[in-house]
């Protein structure tokens, strides 16, 4: 069989001078060819051999997205070790958990911040022998921990090893087996500590073949003319697909921004053709457009308003037509393209996007419509770490909004008759959870079906609609099953609402905790000359509560009476990963929220004299 690192080597041999990736440094885009990519990855491989890394060992990478992440990933897998990715935002206790649980023997850390974090917990990590730091600033000459090694010294070690054992990496590379561990992906479970999902070389190969054959996401299939901006955490399986695996499969070019703060600018400069985002990103882009427009000149604003009305109509029509244009939407879009859509898309860095995808969490239909209306072909896709991100996708021309699409070619998908749970089966089904056979047994059944934990239903017999996480389904005191995320997403489709948590399990009626979007509500308040100091202050303003009430009322009209929000409370702060309220991927940890805001929640159900808001 072929493996991921072998594919990189082949590309380096066949097209050594083509550009594999670009990275912006000192304001200029530096190009990295396929030959460079393989050269540096194999040096990483040699260095790891010099450090005594054995087949099946784990090597951790803790860094923002940058080319060294890819060099490391390929170098690690080339010597048949497994890559363990850490979120750059992981707080120290979670870093400790992942490093200790995985038993990583080498850590490749980005900079001083990560090294400091490691030093805090170094005593509890006996297996960790070496820590390589990529950016030496603030570290070299100052830190004396003998386990530390600079990236340059690391590569020099590889070079020395290569001189002494020129074929060592190649030998490992050729001996690779399909069941070799390729990576441990720690899934940020909304309950309990993260579990390491084992993906094998063969799992990865399945994804790469799916991407290559065009059976997957993109139509026409992705090629080496496609451009990608890599910006979501690479330890997450979705970004691994769009950055590393697409690149290895078809040779699409990866672009790395200078830092997470400059992604928007990088999008504008690169104008990618394929773009994956989580709903939060798409929502933010859409909200940003509206904020910027509210400060524009009168003429610009009128032009924007006029063409956004048309865009809404185009978006709606496209949605009704499974993503296909009609003659009239085509004509209107053509004029709108000259007046608004082209410059707007260029500003957003989306001018050349021919395929955009949203996944990892449900997206509000309004947001999908917004992007489709301005001409960006958006597709909701579905997958999870445990099935190597391959399950269902909306295909071009067969889009059904509100669904996550059709089963991908080569993937079996069914819905359990009793529980309604979505089950998948294919070659990409993960091997199991690291050191956790019980959890594995709960997830993969005897017939090899993966239990996703998502409840769904078929739409028109072809597409799947996800109703909720199986654990999150609310059963009211009246015995009615309610899916909170549908209501939450409807609330969150308002640009003013960032978080909505619907509560009501074993209660008489539904209530919600609401967190405002600071940017948009702040802007809204300023326009009304409402002064405010902090997030808390702003969210408690009577005017803001009234604004939220109107959004809640609007949502309530869309749902049956038992599914309406009777009362709500404002969150006094922004939810935060570090305080355990969100997972690393910004998903809500319901148990933590219920605990932290217990008092506020009880207040919503106390029989005070205060009238219950209908």
């Amino acid at each position: 069989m072929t493996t991921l690192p072998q594919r990189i080597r082949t590309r380096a041999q066949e097209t050594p001078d083509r550009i594999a990736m670009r990275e912006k440094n000192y304001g200029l885009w530096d190009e990295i060819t396929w030959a460079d990519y393989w050269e540096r990855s194999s040096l990483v491989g040699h260095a790891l051999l010099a450090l005594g890394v054995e087949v099946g060992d784990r090597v951790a990478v803790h860094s923002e997205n940058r080319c060294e992440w890819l060099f490391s990933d390929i170098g690690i897998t080339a010597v048949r070790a497994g890559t363990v990715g850490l979120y750059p935002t992981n707080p120290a206790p979670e870093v400790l958990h992942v490093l200790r649980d995985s038993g990583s023997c080498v850590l490749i850390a980005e900079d001083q911040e990560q090294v400091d974090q490691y030093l805090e917990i170094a005593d509890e990590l006996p297996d960790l022998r070496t820590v390589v730091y990529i950016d030496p600033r603030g570290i070299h000459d100052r830190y004396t921990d003998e386990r530390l090694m600079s990236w340059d010294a690391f590569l020099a070690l590889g070079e020395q090893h290569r001189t002494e054992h020129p074929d060592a990496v190649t030998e490992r590379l050729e001996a690779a087996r399909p069941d070799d561990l390729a990576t441990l992906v720690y899934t940020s479970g909304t309950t309990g500590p993260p579990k390491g999902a084992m993906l094998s070389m063969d799992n990865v190969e399945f994804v790469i073949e799916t991407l290559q054959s065009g059976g997957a996401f993109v139509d026409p299939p992705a090629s080496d003319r496609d451009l990608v901006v890599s910006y979501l955490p690479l330890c997450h399986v979705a970004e691994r697909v769009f950055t590393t695996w697409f690149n290895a499969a078809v040779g699409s070019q990866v672009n790395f921004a200078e830092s997470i703060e400059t992604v928007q600018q990088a999008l504008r400069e690169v104008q990618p053709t394929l773009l994956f985002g989580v709903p939060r990103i798409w929502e933010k882009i859409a909200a940003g457009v509206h904020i910027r427009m509210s400060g524009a000149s009168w003429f610009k604003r009128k032009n924007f308003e006029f063409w956004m009305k048309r865009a809404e109509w185009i978006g709606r029509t496209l949605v009704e037509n499974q993503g296909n244009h009609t003659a009239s939407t085509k004509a209107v879009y053509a004029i709108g393209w000259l007046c608004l859509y082209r410059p707007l898309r260029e500003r957003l860095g989306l001018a050349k996007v021919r395929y955009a995808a949203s996944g990892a969490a449900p997206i509000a239909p309004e947001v999908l419509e917004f992007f489709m209306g301005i001409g960006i072909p958006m597709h909701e896709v579905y997958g999870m770490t445990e099935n190597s991100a391959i399950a269902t996708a909306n295909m071009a021309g067969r889009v059904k909004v509100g669904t996550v699409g059709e089963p991908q070619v080569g993937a079996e998908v069914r819905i359990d008759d009793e529980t309604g749970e979505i089950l998948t089966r294919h070659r990409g089904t993960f091997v199991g959870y690291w050191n956790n056979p019980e959890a594995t047994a709960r997830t993969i059944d005897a017939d090899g079906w993966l239990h996703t934990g998502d409840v769904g239903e078929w739409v028109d017999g072809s597409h799947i609609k996800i109703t909720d996480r199986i654990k999150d389904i609310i059963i009211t005191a009246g015995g009615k099953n309610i899916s909170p995320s549908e209501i939450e997403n409807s609330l969150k489709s308002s640009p003013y609402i960032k978080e909505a948590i619907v509560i009501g399990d074993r209660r008489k009626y539904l209530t919600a905790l609401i967190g405002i979007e600071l940017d948009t509500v702040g802007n809204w308040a300023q326009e009304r000359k409402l002064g405010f100091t902090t997030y808390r202050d702003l969210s408690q303003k009577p005017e803001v509560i009234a604004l939220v009430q109107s959004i809640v009322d609007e949502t309530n009209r869309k749902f049956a009476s038992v599914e309406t929000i009777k009362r709500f409370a404002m969150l006094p702060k922004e939810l935060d990963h570090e305080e355990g309220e969100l997972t690393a991927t910004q998903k809500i940890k319901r148990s933590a929220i219920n605990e932290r805001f217990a008092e506020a929640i009880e207040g919503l159900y106390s029989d005070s004299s205060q009238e219950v808001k209908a």
Partner: protein
Amino acid sequence: MSQPVVSVRGVELSFSGVKALQGVDFDVFDNELFAVIGPNGAGKTSIFNVLSGVYRPQQGSVEFAGSDIRGMRPHRIANLGMARTFQNIELFENLDVVDNLMLGRHAHLGYGWPAAVAWLGKAKRAEVANRRRVEEIIDFLEIEGYRQLPVGMLPYGIQKRIELGRALAMEPKLLLLDEPVAGMNGEETEDMARFILDIRNELHIPMILVEHDMGLVMDLADRVMAMDFGKPVATGTPHEVQSHPDVIRAYLGPVDDATLAEVQGELA
């Protein structure tokens, strides 16, 4: 220790009879972070103004990089390699970040206006080299996201960072920082502290720091000089100066020995 970068001896400065500085002596050495502390009106900023040539002291000597700079015009002192930031931000609000930093490269232009107009050879090469240097500073201070934005639009903490960047763009031999964290929140202060440490450790530029944030001074400075009513009362390591009786008196007013011992105990 090697030759001092700056050597101040017996400096006296008065404004129509008001003595702003009296008998100020200190040296700052290579790679040193030297802090000046003291209550309001102690003369800290006056020291900066004497060093950078804004005021001419009536007496004493000020030596910098081997030259006597007492009474020298500010722009000539700047050309010798002394850069400063200000208590109140002094940037060009309508220029973008890159242009503000490029202004800091003024002393390194190396060409005159005819070359600039012709835009040939030397001028172009120098501009490219200077732009590269500015990019290194942008990277150093992590302000990539603000490059093309007018400075006046940026948050206060970022403006402070850009002012520091402009001073660094001069590639100074000595950097004067006038209250670099005044008015900043906790996170901004932490960032600035890290940049100051990195300037010393990575760029090896000696600094003189005037600061009210005592925690910052005690954490960062190699040596501290405490001032009161225009006179230095103690110079030494942060710890020595902190527990010096005269320094405690300067901040707390006249105190008896028991209170003094108590405060020293608290500080120890």
